[in-house]
């Protein structure tokens, strides 16, 4: 649970629309308990393992998120289309992306429960893009995110894209999740 940094840099991994939680972390791995640190790491290993190969690592596809025995991927950003994280309520989904080293997801919009889990658990920062970035960014592009100004710089193509402000979730993300936030606003005793 880290507070948001002002600047985040790293490589992009690009996916399409309606990436659901079964694709992010298949049900057969839900027997690991995310509350146990050793098992938390395991989710990184199986993150995105049910995305069909042709849709993995766009625009070309067939780019694995990581090799089978790696726990952490070489990517920092997920760039995706519409309705990212739809499907089940499993918090194992943002956990899996966090465990795999993803710090930021940038999608057109999110399914509600995934979004809440990402923010309240403080696992990653879910930004919304105004352009369809999954058609503009390629897997492997080097990105630099300017958090205070809501701008994404593509260092590979030299393009800059505007992002929607984080709005009401910013204080929760800045606090590091719902527990610290609830303490700040006096809903929970420190």
């Amino acid at each position, binding site marked *: 649970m880290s507070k948001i940094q002002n600047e985040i840099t790293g490589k992009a991994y690009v996916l399409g629309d*309606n990436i*659901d939680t*079964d*694709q992010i972390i*298949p*049900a*057969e791995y*839900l*027997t*690991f*308990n*995310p*509350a*146990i640190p050793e098992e938390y790491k395991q989710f990184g290993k199986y993150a995105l393992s*049910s*995305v*069909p190969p042709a849709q993995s690592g766009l625009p070309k596809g067939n780019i694995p998120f990581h090799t089978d025995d790696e726990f952490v991927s070489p990517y920092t950003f997920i760039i995706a289309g*519409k*309705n990212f994280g*739809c*499907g*089940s*309520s*499993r*918090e*194992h989904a*943002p956990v899996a992306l966090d465990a795999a080293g993803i710090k930021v997801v940038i999608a057109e*919009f999110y*399914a*509600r*429960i995934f979004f*809440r*889990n990402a923010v*309240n*658990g403080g696992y990653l920062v879910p930004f919304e893009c105004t352009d369809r970035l999954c058609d503009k960014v390629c897997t492997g592009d080097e990105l630099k995110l300017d958090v205070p100004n809501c701008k994404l710089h593509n260092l590979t193509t030299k393009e800059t894209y505007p992002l929607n402000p984080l709005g*009401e979730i910013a204080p929760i993300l800045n606090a590091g*999740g*719902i*527990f610290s936030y*609830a303490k700040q606003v006096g*809903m*929970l005793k420190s």
Partner: protein
Amino acid sequence: MPAMTLTEKILAKHAKSNFVEPGQNIWIDIDILMTHDVCGPGTIGVFKKHFGKAAKVWDPKKIVIIPDHYIFTADKMANRNIDVLREFSKEQNLPYYYDVGTEKYKGVCHIALPEEGHTRPGEVLLGTDSHTCTAGAFGEFATGIGNTDAGFVMGTGSLWLKVPPTMRFVFEGTLPPYLMAKDLILAVIGDIGCDGATYRAMEFDGAGVFALNMEERMTLCNMVIEAGGKNGVIAPDKVTLDFIDSKNKHKVPYTPVYTDPGAKFIYEKVYDISKMQPVVAKPHSPDNKAFVSEVKGAKLDRAYIGSCTGGKMTDFRAAAKIMHGHSVKIDTFVVPATTEVAKGLKSEKMHGKTLEQIFLDAGAKMGDASCAACLGGPSDTFGRLNQAIRCISTTNRNFPGRMGHKEAEVFLASPLTVAASAITGMITDPREYLA
């Protein structure tokens, strides 16, 4: 005071406020928190981490723990997770823990909740499962949350929530005998898309809805999440109240809540259900709608009848009506949602045979009450799609990998359509088997 929808009124009451409006962030009191074997251990971990090892839950009577997902498996981790639930329930003296291997074991949580009297009109029910929205059928606000939120609720009995705007779906007319609630909700999801209700409430209204029994109403609300909905809701009527009063063994008082005249809906659509047709959702999304007439004849490898969506008595009565006197042509798996449904299959008769006997005589395989292959699960799970085969199923999701193999294809359909298709081995219109 401005008019409010049913959902807004329940949320206002639980925020101890006279009025709330869509978009507002509020803190609300929770009536029931439900968790299961997949998300329970993580929730308990969050609770202990933030409230301390010796912490007590906010109210033991308001926490319901129902193991249901990975039950009949040799998987060590899955069984370890049940041990975590068992120990926690003992440590916290939780009266409503439905333990595996005991008389109390139930099966699928969303069906077990009403059977055991944990659903009531006007209440707020949160559960660590996206299909918690099923309970909206009882006129309450019910939605799915993650482990962190659930851990927070466990310690405090409250949570922040954003008030959703309400979409209204009015079903007019009489439901023809070849259609079920499953056809209606698949049609709605196909029309609005799997993100069509994101951050919104879906209220079902109209004579067609109030003519449905509770189980069919649950099927409608169960799948609102497949359109991205936050909650689904149906105003309580006599059918609801009779059901609730017959199950309310804990004698908890409740107050039904209704949408005010003149309340604002962000979207409204009227369906004449007497003119609708059987539908399926094609692979790989619940909104990939097609009429059965458009895909009939497509070859199948397997049929599956079960889950919180399609594993209730009403679903099995429908399937038995079609399967009676026929044999299945493809592997057909029948999984009752709960142990109570399993008992019903052994006792309820049609044409002089129990429903279970009708399925067995038709050549179907019967499983034990649980989620089973609805969400894939460990590789030894009953009915799991371990190869890239094509299945027609009464469940609620057909995303890649949902029922096991990531290249398997799943068609979602009503129990009537699935039963007719099991007999022929290809997608079949149930009208062909309904005299």
